Structures are given as C-alpha cells and as structure tokens.
C-alpha cells in the first residue's frame, strides 16, 4: 500500500485545507475569491472548477513527469493548465450557462493561478500518481472550502439570502431576511472586507487552536 513513498495521504489531503490553504494562508489566487463570491452558488461552482483543474493538472503532470525536459517544464506546465482550464470553461458554459455568464472570465483566469503552477512544480512533477491526485484534491478542496465560506458569509450578510444549488440548472434561494441588511457586502468593497475579516478569523483560530505561531505577511 505505502509502496515507495512515505507520504501520509491523509496528512497531504488535510494540508491543502488547513496548513497551506491557498486563500487564507498562502494568500494566492485571490482574484476570484472576491470577484465571484457575492453569491453562494457562484462561489461553489468556482470552487469546483478550481478543484477539477487542480486535480486533473496534478494527475496529468504526475503521469508525464518522467518525460518532461527540465528546461522547458514551465511552458509545458502552462500548456497543460491552459488545456484543462479551456476544457473546464467549455464544460461550464455547456452545463451551467447562467453561472458561466457571471464567472466566465474568472474561470479563464484560473490559468494564471500561481497556486496551480506551484503545486505542479513542487509536488506533481516529483511524486507519483496517487499522492499527486490526493494533493490536488486537498488543495482544491481547501480552495472550495474558502470560497464557500466567503460566499456564504457575503451573501447572508449582504442579501439576507442563500442561493443553494439543487441541481445543475436549479437552485433554491433561502431568504432569511427580507430587507438587504448590508448591501455593501455583495459589492466589490465588501468582498475585500469579508476576505480580510475571514482571514483574520482563520489566523486567530490557527494560533489559538492549532498551535502554530502567528505568522507575519
């Protein structure tokens, strides 16, 4: 089972969610975290898109790792990432066109995600198929978790409702408060505020409960 690697799969998976959470800890790939999170449904789909791309890219690079010339590896990684992003973009346009209409540009910008490139370079190009896949899933889930949390917070506080996807083309909007409590939360400015507050909260939980020393950025 363990084979040649001594990587603990469970730890690797959790790494992406907590210790090296892309948004809250590494502060990478921030652009979509604010742009698309004014609505729970959009946030979830964007998170799923990143999860898909991250995992597939890790798998692809890991399978190809013995054939990639070191000198041209960065362009090759970019090519692989662009390919998967194009595929994801088309899939979303086909299956969830209403979400795609809003977040389409940001899906395409997944290509520029430093986090995916970094994972490919640091992990997938050096590790086997299963660890790479788990790492991709972990980082992707961490991203999904972050986006979902941010969207949940923003939509609830900003619009008093939650748009929960119940199927590919349907959603149920739970309205908790009829007036819009803090409209600013769903505007760009609120996005920054929400992420800042949630990041601070994450830091606080991290230091208090998970025992890591407070980090300086």
């Amino acid at each position: 089972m363990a084979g040649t690697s001594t990587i603990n799969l469970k730890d690797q998976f959790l790494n992406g969610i907590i210790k090296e959470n892309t948004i809250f800890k590494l502060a990478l790939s921030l652009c979509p975290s604010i742009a698309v999170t004014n609505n729970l449904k959009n946030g979830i789909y964007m998170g799923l898109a990143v999860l898909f791309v991250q995992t597939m890219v890790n798998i692809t690079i890991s399978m190809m790792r013995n054939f990639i010339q070191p000198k041209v590896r960065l362009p090759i990684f970019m090519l692989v990432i662009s390919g998967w992003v194009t595929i994801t973009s088309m899939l979303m346009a086909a299956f969830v066109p209403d979400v795609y209409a809003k977040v389409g540009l940001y899906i395409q910008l997944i290509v520029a995600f430093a986090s995916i490139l970094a994972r490919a370079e640091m992990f997938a190009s050096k590790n086997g198929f299963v660890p790479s896949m788990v790492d991709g899933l972990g980082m992707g889930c961490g991203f999904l978790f972050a986006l979902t949390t941010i969207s949940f917070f923003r939509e609830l506080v900003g619009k008093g409702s939650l748009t929960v996807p119940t199927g590919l083309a349907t959603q149920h909007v739970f309205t908790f408060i009829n007036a819009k409590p803090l409209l600013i939360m769903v505007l760009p400015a609120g996005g920054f505020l929400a992420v800042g507050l949630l990041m601070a909260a994450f830091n606080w939980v991290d230091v208090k409960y998970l025992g890591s020393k407070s980090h300086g950025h």
Partner: protein
Amino acid sequence: MGSEFTRLFELVISASLINNFVFTRFLGLCIFFGVSRKMETAVGMSITFTSVMIISAALSWVVFTKVMVPLEITFLEIIVFIGVIAGLVQASDTIMRKVASGLYYKLGIYLALISTNCIILAVPLVSAGEKYSFIQSLAFGLGSGLGFALALIIMASIREKLELADVPVPFRGLPMAFVVTGLIALAFTGFSGLITM
C-alpha cells in the same frame, strides 16, 4: 472623428476609474498586495506594468484579429494569449538587459512577476470579447495600466503608515491590507455612473 476620440477617452477613464481593475474587478491582487508595501516598489511596478500592458494589448489584438479569427481558432484564446504574454515578457527581459541595463537593474524584477498577473491576461480577453478596434485596445490597455498604478500608489502610501500602527494580532499583515483595500474600493464605488457607456 470627434466621437471616436471621445470614445477612446471614455475607455481610458472607464478602465482606470470606474471599472478599476483592482478595486472593481478584483484582478491583479496577488501582485497588488505583494508590491504595495513600499512606494518605491509600487512606482517601479506601475511603470513596468503599464508599458507591458500597452504592448501586449497591441500584440494580442494583432494575433487575435489577424490570425485567430480568420483561422477560426478563437477558442484557443487562453493558450495563445498566455503564449504571447510569456514571449513578450521574455523578450522584454532580454532586450532590457542589453539595451537599458540601468533601467533593468531597477525594474527587471517586476517583469517576471507580471507574467502571472491576472490583469495582463484579462485585458486581451476582455478586448477580444468586446471586439475593440486596435486603437480602442490600446486605450483600454493604457487605462488599465493607469488604474493599476493609481491603486498601487494609493495602497503603498497607506501601507507605509500602517507598518507603524498598532494592529490587532490576527489582523496583522494581509488581513488588515484587505480591510484597507475594501475601504478604498468603497470610495471608488463613488465613480460608478461617472460616464454612461
């Protein structure tokens, strides 16, 4: 002729103020937060970025309109634009090193950072989507560069002061920067409706 020029002016104002790429469209954030700690780096990045932006806007337009549209491979735009930008950055790096080494010494490091910047990819994508003409793409690129410069300089001047302030521990560093950016973004919301496009 008059209305064409007005439209260009509107594009520049729109890209730099109303739809500021950082405060309204949330693009280029990683670089924004990374480089805005000191005024010096902010200014350096602004200059480099605006220049690269304009050139890449021009190049991407040419490649898209003259090559991709006739060949009907527009769905490859992501891959092609990334290629164009990477090539441009590499070329600028090499040229700058030889021709203007003094300048390269100061600004060279920002060039490398630009290639993973969302904005540099977003501008060609938006131009292609909105089907801007060549001059319009240039204006759009210029506006976005100016907007980014404005954002960086405002942020740097605030962050330099923030270093000396007494910030609560969980907020130290990036979270506080985000909150500050939120406040600036709030101010920028005032620009909406400045020009009806």
